[in-house]
């Protein structure tokens, strides 16, 4: 592991993960580990419903007490208990390398933290790096012991390319995948619009959580004078003269952009959290938990 990697996921970070794990359990006390209710009816312990017996049903699930009272064979239905697939879509486009610390580093930490908690809850954690397509994908992992593998995967993600989330998500979702929780960690700078990309995830009925990462330089750019602005993703440059009114217009546009994303998420009941890169990642993780998308 390189020096940067050591800094990113050092002992301090690991301690914070443990802390988050404990906090998450306290927040969602009483919920069983790896017992996530699904809509499937199956062999779980949690009672779900009754239905009339039909030939072929398992006799073990007949409710004999009900038979004695009603003289009818009624089958007890139990919720299927299965592990939750969590898909972490980490934006690794060139724009994510922007900021200090970079948005990608911040995304790595947030992703690692959420992965750790997911693994600790015996969920199936998938990490996908995307930009203008699926750049790399990590096989599903389960169990806390896999966290270092995830660390390595995250560290191997390199920023580059333009963002094309729709194409990336479409590619990923066309493969046979189980429905699960899709966590999109991105700066949301997509020239084609992020709404259409999220639509793809929505249409395959993923539970979606958007973590929108921004840097201070994007929120309040400290730019002055005659500048040639160069887009880090496509190297397109534009000469402008920064004026106070222009900066004000940019800030307004940024807020409008964020509000549009938030509004979209709200409209379709998607989880949404916006953060800046100097906001403590553990705070963000807790904020995510508080939204109730994790550890149902």
């Amino acid at each position, binding site marked *: 592991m390189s020096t940067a990697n050591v800094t990113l996921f050092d002992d301090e970070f690991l301690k914070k993960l443990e802390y988050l794990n404990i906090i998450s359990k306290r927040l969602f006390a009483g919920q069983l580990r790896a017992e996530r209710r699904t809509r499937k009816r199956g062999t779980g312990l949690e009672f779900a419903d009754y239905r009339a017996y039909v030939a072929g049903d398992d006799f073990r699930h007949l409710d004999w007490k009900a038979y004695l009272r009603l003289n009818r064979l009624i089958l007890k239905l139990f919720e299927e208990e299965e592990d939750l697939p969590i898909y972490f879509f980490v934006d690794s486009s060139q*724009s*994510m*390398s*922007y*900021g200090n610390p970079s*948005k990608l580093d911040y995304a790595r930490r947030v992703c690692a933290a959420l992965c750790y908690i997911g693994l600790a809850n015996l969920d199936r954690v998938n990490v996908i790096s995307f930009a203008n397509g699926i750049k790399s994908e990590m096989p599903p992992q389960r169990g806390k012991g896999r966290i270092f593998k995830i660390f390595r995967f995250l560290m191997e993600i390199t920023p580059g390319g333009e*963002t094309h989330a729709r194409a990336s998500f479409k590619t990923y979702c066309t493969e046979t995948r189980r429905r699960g929780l899709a966590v999109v960690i991105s*700066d949301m*700078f*997509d*020239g084609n619009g992020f709404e259409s990309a999220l639509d793809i995830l929505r249409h395959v009925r993923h539970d979606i959580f958007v973590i929108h990462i921004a*840097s201070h*330089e*994007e929120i309040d*750019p400290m*730019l002055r*004078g*005659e*500048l*040639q*602005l*160069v*887009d*880090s*993703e496509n190297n*397109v*440059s*534009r*000469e*402008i*003269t*920064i*004026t*106070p*009114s*222009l900066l004000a*217009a*940019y800030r307004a*546009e*940024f807020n409008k*952009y964020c509000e549009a994303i938030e509004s979209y998420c709200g409209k379709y009941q998607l989880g949404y959290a916006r953060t800046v890169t100097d906001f403590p990642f553990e705070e963000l993780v807790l904020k995510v938990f508080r939204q109730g998308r994790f550890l149902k």
Partner: protein
Amino acid sequence: MTFLALTAAQAGLLAATTVAIIIGLYLLKLRHRRVLISSSILWRRVLDERQSHSLWEKLRRIISIVIAATIALLIALSLARPEIESLTGKNERIVIVLDTSPTMNTNTSDGKTRWQHAAERAKSLLDSGGPTTEFRVLDTAEVTASAFTTDRNEVRKLIDTMSSKSAEPHFPRVDGRAAQVYFISDGVAIHSTPSFVKRISVFEPANNVGITAFEIRSVPSTPLGYEAYLEIQNFGQPTEAGLTLSGPGGQRIIKTVRLETEQTYKDVFDLSQFAEGGIRATVQAKDDAFPMDDVAFAYLPIKRKTRTLLVTKGNRYLETALKLDNYVELSVTEPASYRESPNIDTYIFDKFAPNAPPARPALIFGTPSAPWLKPVAGEIQKPEITTWSEDHPIMQYVSVHDVAIERAARIDADNLTVVAASKQTPLIVVSEKPKWVMLTFSLEASDFAFHVGFPVFIENVLAWFNRDQLALKRSPGIVDVPLANAQVQTIDGKTVPSEQQLGKTIFLANEPGLFAALRGDTRVHVAVNLANPTFSDVNRSIFKTDRTAARQQFWLRRELWFYMLLAAVVLISIEWFTYHRRITL
């Protein structure tokens, strides 16, 4: 537009070069600082929206170039000193001649004087000029003569320091081809002006009764008596005038007379009851607008006979002349019998001089040899009197230009005052201390004794030696007294600042008054009176304001370059402000 510092072609070239440089500098593209941003999505939206909706965004660069070029043009062209006639007037020269004659002190109906009106008109002339107009101010007393200047404040201050003078006015010499000449006057004292002069009148009719003559003179019938001659004239509406003559001992003569317009009143007053000293004559009339001629002064001396010793071997002309003089008590003796006596006021030596100078003043004819007199250095045959000093008291009313002299001695006149001289030698010299007068020719060698001025000369000499004399008559203004190194005092004993010039004492008397010039035992009285009908006739104005004297007023008070630089500074400030806020580029 014209340019004072450059030709039109040079100015055009300067302007074109300046604009070319500015546009060139703008075209040299400023290297923009390269800044990497995460994504240009938002910037693109902002810029596209702004550029598509704002005409200002499209014009911003052009406006910046225009502002910069305008600033540079304003600075560059200001160096060429541009001038727009309609804004700043022509580049012209104006001479303002202010009449400072005494009549300008006449009061007007609004309580001001004609002089104050003239000063106001002069200042309004200053305001009418363009920024490049050069002004020069002159007066008719030849006291003020400024150089041409564009500094109006300086000219204004100069006008404020000027005042009406009592001196005889003269229209100054002015070149009418090089400048416009304005003459601001009441048109009373100066009667003619050059044709190119534009006249501005401050005349307003006024009432005035003034003293036009006042003097003290001997009474022919009473050798030691004096009388005062007073003449007043009414130059306004018919009125009653009160006359007052007052003496130093409280003596007073008061009289009231009725005067019709232009009527002159003359009277003689007996002063036998008046004590020695200054006599003041005043005239009072209702609504008198010109106070300067309402008072006049004279000096009343006290006469007594001069005890005179004539030392001669025999000179009938001289002896006869002295005997006929009513003011002389004559004794005659021969040189051998000469003894100095305390009972003698004046000695007259005819071709004789004692070895020691007498204690009393002496009149010496011929050039006798004596240690205290100048030695004779030769003889001049038939010298002609070429110069003589009419100002000296002994030469008053004495004409010597046609005196024929057979021969005269040549002497060195160092430390002596020469009151008459030929080209070769002094002819009449005066010693102040000891006091004596010497003629370098004898009466027998000239026809001086046959001239009408001879008795007057004798009388003047004796008067200068011993007597108080009548006051010298002078007009207000710069007064000269033929007495060198004298101290001048008013009749009240106050010292008046004076200067020495060519053996005379000069002082300034703006008002009528009686002054005394003192040096040792010598006292000369000077009566300064206006007593001039030319000035007292304050209603005799000969011109009105010329139609061509009206001038256009210009809005701009300074040269155009000043406003151009001011505009450049304002534009630079605006540009600085807008540039730092990135409103302009």
